[in-house]
């Protein structure tokens, strides 16, 4: 099955090909990454069909390929790829979503001056995610993890001429970097304990680990996953990441970036199970994230921000499933969420493209102008809200079931509450955007290259839910249709949320004045609008002291270090000026003085040399007289 190698490498090669091209050619060669992605998606379907009927064990490796990188202290350090059921599912999801996003981007980015570079990074991003999914060891996973961090940085800051994207890209990079520290820490501890980074070795030797090791590793891995998958309190980068191009957001939110964190925990879940406290922490963090994300999504006016916080909330629910030690439920929700959330983002892209604004308060009545977008967007929204029979309903129910069977009854309540809020804000979004009075002129449906991927994703969202038992069975769990009682409760909750949303936003066909609600719940609303003060707290706790420290160091540099250097320089200048004065006055003075003296003496003495013999005679006479006088005086 060596052709599996082509799945991650085709987009990677497309990236390299585009990288080598000059700007003009790159912008015209967009068929290369799209074609590579579509072929990759086709191969992924083939790969999935290879394992589909099997469904024996979650971790049974179907295909393995590794090459020796180096020998470290006598132990071989191998990098390798492996293909199993989990990898197959994620490969399929990632490639399908990425292919849809790329085709969609053809329409969305067709006027951008740097679209070639955009497609190149998109390809690299996907390639990194695919390699990460196929990696059979933590080292390769870590490398791809960092590569994705870089790609998300490049995509979020794609319009780097503007300040918003620039700052958002740095924020995303730095925030996820905190999580990466956890992964590095876990890598170190694991190598120390096991001497290998291969999943098989790590999980195989797990029973023999010292007591604290599993906990330490699990904490590191959890931190890493929290950064990458935007869990509270490291979620702050994700809403800001909306500054990037909308299709890139779709990719980040659905297929690549945020899925990596969930995938990492799913892969290493046995380590978490060996550290029950950390597993419990995962559940709690997931619960908090689910609630925080949902509440914040309900007060956003920016269409993309609503979806961003919704992603945070859904990722929280996935983490809750992981916290209940259920890989199957988490991954199933990851897959369904990938499809409907990318669908929603692509729809939001069409809306923004057409409305030229992201603020839903300025929209309204879009349904009449863009029927296909409206239909697909509503399908995605309904899936997000958990309406039967869409995919979101099944995956969310599975998580509730898992939590229920794990006796985490409070967590069931959290998921239901989060579902209620989700249904509410999704309804709010739909009513505000698609119904009500029109406020924008020249609305138009998206280009066919943008609409076609959305229709495809909507179709997947419609049917994927029915794969629920099959999916669970495929991943090695005993699967079943959702229990009727739980399904009824969750459906009621979803309907309640939708009804609430309709009551507030859809009942009258006028622009809803929410000021009354804001005034009635001033404190709560204020806290929510301020994003529950996360950014504010970070500003005060981390950024301000950091800046202060930086200022302090800058001051130290400016005054002490610069002072010493400048002082030395100034002293040297002083020294040279003294030396110059000594040279000019003493040395030159002596030389010039001797010259002047001899010149003056010469000038004086020249008067004696008249050339007349008689004057010489007179001199001789005077000399003789003086001599004689001397003799006479001396003699006397």
């Amino acid at each position, binding site marked *: 099955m060596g052709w599996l190698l082509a799945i991650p490498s085709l987009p990677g090669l497309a990236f390299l090909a585009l990288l080598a091209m000059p700007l003009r050619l790159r912008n015209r060669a967009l068929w290369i990454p799209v074609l590579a992605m579509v072929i990759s998606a086709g191969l992924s379907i083939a790969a999935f069909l290879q394992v589909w009927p099997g469904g024996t064990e979650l971790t049974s490796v179907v295909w393995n390929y590794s090459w020796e990188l180096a020998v470290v202290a006598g132990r071989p350090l191998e990098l390798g790829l492996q293909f199993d059921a989990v990898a197959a599912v994620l490969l399929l999801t990632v490639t399908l979503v990425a292919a849809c996003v790329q085709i969609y981007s053809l329409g969305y980015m067709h006027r951008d001056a740097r679209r070639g570079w955009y497609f190149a990074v998109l390809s690299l991003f996907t390639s990194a995610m695919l390699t990460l999914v196929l990696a059979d060891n933590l080292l390769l996973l870590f490398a791809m993890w960092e590569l994705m961090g870089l790609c998300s940085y490049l995509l979020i800051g794609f319009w780097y001429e503007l300040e918003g994207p620039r700052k958002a890209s740095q924020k995303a990079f730095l925030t996820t970097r905190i999580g990466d520290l956890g992964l590095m820490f876990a890598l170190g501890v694991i190598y120390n304990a096991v001497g290998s980074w291969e999943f098989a070795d790590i999980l195989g030797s797990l029973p023999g680990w010292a007591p604290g090791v599993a906990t330490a590793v699990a904490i590191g891995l959890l931190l890493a996953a929290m950064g990458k998958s935007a869990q509270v309190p490291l979620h702050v980068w994700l809403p800001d990441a909306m500054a990037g191009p909308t299709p890139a957001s779709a990719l980040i939110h659905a297929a690549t970036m945020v899925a990596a964190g969930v995938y990492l925990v799913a892969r290493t879940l046995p380590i978490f199970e060996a550290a029950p406290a950390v597993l419990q922490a995962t559940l709690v963090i997931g619960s908090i994230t689910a609630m925080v994300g949902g509440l914040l999504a309900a007060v956003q006016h920016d269409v993309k921000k609503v979806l961003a916080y919704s992603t945070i909330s859904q990722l929280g629910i996935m983490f809750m499933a992981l916290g209940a030690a259920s890989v199957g439920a988490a991954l199933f929700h990851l897959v369904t969420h990938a499809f409907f959330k990318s669908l929603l983002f692509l729809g939001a892209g069409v809306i923004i493209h057409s409305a030229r604004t992201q603020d839903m308060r300025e929209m309204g009545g879009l349904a009449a102008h863009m029927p296909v977008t409206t239909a697909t967007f509503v399908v995605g929204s309904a899936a997000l809200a958990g309406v039967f029979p869409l995919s979101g309903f099944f995956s969310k129910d599975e998580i509730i079931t898992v939590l229920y069977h794990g006796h985490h009854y409070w967590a069931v309540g959290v998921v239901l509450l989060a579902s209620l809020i989700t249904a509410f804000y999704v309804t709010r979004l739909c009513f505000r955007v698609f119904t009500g009075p029109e406020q924008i002129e020249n609305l138009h449906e998206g280009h066919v290259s943008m609409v076609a991927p959305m229709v495809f994703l909507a179709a997947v969202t419609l049917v994927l839910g029915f794969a629920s038992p099959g999916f669970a069975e495929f991943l090695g769990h005993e699967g079943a249709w959702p229990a009727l009682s739980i399904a009824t409760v969750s459906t009621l909750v979803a309907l309640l949320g939708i009804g609430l949303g309709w009551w507030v936003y859809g009942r009258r066909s006028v622009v809803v004045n929410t000021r009354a609600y804001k005034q009635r719940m001033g404190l709560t609303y204020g806290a929510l609008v301020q994003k529950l003060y996360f950014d504010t707290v970070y500003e005060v706790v981390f950024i301000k002291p950091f800046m202060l420290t930086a200022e302090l160091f800058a001051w130290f540099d400016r005054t002490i270090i610069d002072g010493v250097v400048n002082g030395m320089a100034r002293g040297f200048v002083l020294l040279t000026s003294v030396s110059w004065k000594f040279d000019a006055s003493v040395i030159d003075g002596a030389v010039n003085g001797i010259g002047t003296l001899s010149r003056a003496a010469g000038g004086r003495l*020249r008067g004696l*040399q*008249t*050339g*007349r*013999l*008689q004057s010489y*005679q007179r001199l001789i*006479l005077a000399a003789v007289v003086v001599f004689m006088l001397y003799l006479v005086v001396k003699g006397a």
Partner: protein
Amino acid sequence: MRVGLEAFLMLAAMLFSLGLYGAVSKKGAIQVLMSLELMAVAVNINLVAFSRFVTPLSQDGLFFTLFAMVISAAEVGLGLALVIAVYRRAHDSEITGLNELKG
């Protein structure tokens, strides 16, 4: 009254001074030459006087004076020849114009 050595020496000194004055101050080359002769004569008087009063028995001084007179005659011949040569060159016999040695 007997004339003593001092009178001769005084005469010689006066002659020498006159000659010296002339040699130093006269413009004409001939006059300077004559002044030089005066000084030579003063020396000769000294020689004769010392010979007569200091060593009366020996005739050395007298003969030495005769030689000196002959030599000064030759000197005058040479000096006059030089004066004529200078005159031919500068059409002037005044030595004040002869300052080519001036530095």
